[in-house]
């Protein structure tokens, strides 16, 4: 039997390297998937430009953060980016609406098939990614300032006397906190407000919504504002937590779509649940359990290898496998969403 402190050490180890990072990453995916699922529910196409809309929003956040810092304005212990978020959402929303007016609206009026809109969104994706690279370049950038940690590993060890440390970064706590507030606000809006209900009605049954006098143009407008806000928040949180690199935002499209489809596309609650499942699967599949095991099994059984299912280079394979399995076994996802055609 392992001793109590060994079990505690093992638990702290898992919390530090699996639970906390996956919770933060899952929150970012959940916000991203919410944007995709909302656009799908209302506009009825899979928006491949969402990853690059996130990159665009983050670019604006970074520019505004620099602007604020240049004027000597910071947010104290929390990243300055948090202040920059509000105006950046505004700019991104305007950009999304302009894109809708000029591209998606054009095809909507012609009642184009969903696949046409999907291809158009790929075009928008290239355009946005070019704008982002033009402004920011292709390198890694960190734009987080303020206090780096809430709890440092060393402090934790001294406090508890355990061998394993637990570190919680400000950006991780912030990510989870902001995600909870955003998701709650969105759900209250969709459940309680007149406009939110009209959006659900439009997503549920477009013809009947029109017969009830719901104005489709207004629903579409509000959808883009919300999608842009979600994209900017998700993108900024991801960038704060890891770093900002345009290419990784394109790559995020895979886990985001896996999350949205796993939860049931068009279902907001599904996007949130899907986001966390994908994040936890990814982190748990790529974590090396060797040290974890040494705490729990007798020394003689100590494992030889790293006890890692997949190298971190292959983390996107996890999303891919989830996506394929869901589409094969239950295409409507957990919460019975639509099936992408």
């Amino acid at each position, binding site marked *: 039997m392992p001793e109590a402190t060994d079990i505690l050490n093992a638990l702290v180890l898992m919390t530090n390297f699996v639970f906390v990072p996956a919770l933060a990453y899952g929150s970012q995916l959940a916000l991203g998937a919410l944007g995709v699922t909302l656009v799908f529910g209302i506009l009825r196409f899979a928006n491949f430009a969402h990853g690059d809309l996130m990159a665009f929003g983050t670019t604006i956040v970074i520019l505004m953060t620099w602007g604020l810092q240049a004027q000597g304005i910071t947010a104290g212990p929390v990243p300055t980016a948090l202040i920059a978020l509000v105006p950046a959402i505004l700019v991104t929303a305007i950009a999304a609406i302009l894109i809708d007016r000029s591209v998606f609206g054009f095809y909507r009026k012609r009642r184009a098939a969903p696949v046409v809109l999907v291809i158009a969104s790929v075009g928008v994706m290239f355009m946005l990614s070019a704008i982002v690279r033009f402004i920011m370049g292709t390198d890694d950038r960190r734009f987080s300032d303020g206090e780096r940690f809430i709890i440092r590993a060393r402090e934790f060890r001294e406090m508890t006397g355990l061998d394993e440390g637990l570190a919680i970064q400000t950006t991780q706590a912030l990510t989870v906190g902001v995600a909870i507030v955003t998701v709650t606000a969105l759900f209250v809006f969709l459940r309680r407000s007149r406009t939110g209900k009209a959006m659900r009605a439009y997503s*549920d*049954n477009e013809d*009947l919504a029109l*017969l009830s006098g719901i104005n489709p143009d207004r629903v579409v407008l509000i959808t883009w504002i919300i999608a842009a806000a979600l994209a900017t928040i998700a993108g900024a949180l991801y960038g704060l937590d890891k770093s900002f690199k345009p290419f990784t935002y394109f790559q995020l499209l895979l886990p985001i779509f896996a999350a949205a489809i796993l939860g049931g596309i068009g279902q907001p609650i599904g996007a949130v649940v899907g986001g966390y499942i994908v994040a936890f699967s990814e982190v748990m599949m790529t974590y090396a359990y060797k040290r974890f095991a040494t705490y729990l099994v007798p020394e003689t059984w100590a494992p030889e290898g790293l006890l890692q299912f997949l190298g971190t280079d292959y983390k996107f394979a996890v999303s891919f496998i989830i996506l394929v399995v869901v589409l094969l076994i239950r295409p409507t996802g957990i919460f019975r969403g639509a099936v992408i055609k």
Partner: protein
Amino acid sequence: MYLIGQGMTGGYGGADIIKDCTIGVDKGEIAVIVGPNGAGKSTAMKAMLGMLTIRQGHVRLGDKDITRLTPQARVGEGIAFVPQTNNVFTGMSVEENLEMGAYLRRDDIRHTMAQIYDLFPILKEKRRQNAGELSGGQRQQVAVGRALMTRPSVLMLDEPTAGVSPIVMGELFDRIIEVRDTGLAVLMVEQNARQALEIADRGYVLVGGVNWREGTGEELLANPEVRKSFLGG
């Protein structure tokens, strides 16, 4: 007549589905359209609603020509419509369905909602349940309730009794009579021709997109030709 589609001719882009078709209904009256499948009954209704552009003819509501109005504008003018299929928001509660029916209204809707719960008591009981989880007959009640939330002057129903049992059908017809007695004009398409004509003040038999016979419900029920073709002798 209060609502009338006069000499309507048109289709879905290809050949004309309805040809010189005239259908009307007055306030405080039930008008029923019957006819074989594919006769153009739903199409005639869609034409009166503006969900289909007609090549010839016009639609009048009261003394207003509404031929060029969009469906939403006609809803605003007081025409409510219960489609044949997909006529509820399945992912929303019964109460939310009713609220959406009243979307255009900015005044207090609680009184109207109470009236609808009086008309369909089961809906009050199930008001927190999703409409998609209800039985066929209950769904039709939600659909009618949603349409009535606008406080319309005309209620149009496309096969409200499709797929419900004879008992539920009888109840639904009783409710529709109650609605008529409040002074609304009720226009409906019905597959159950005999029962529908029994409650109809006015009836139209449509065949191949043209008016074949018309008259009061009683007249049509007594007409040997109509009996032979549609009422099984």
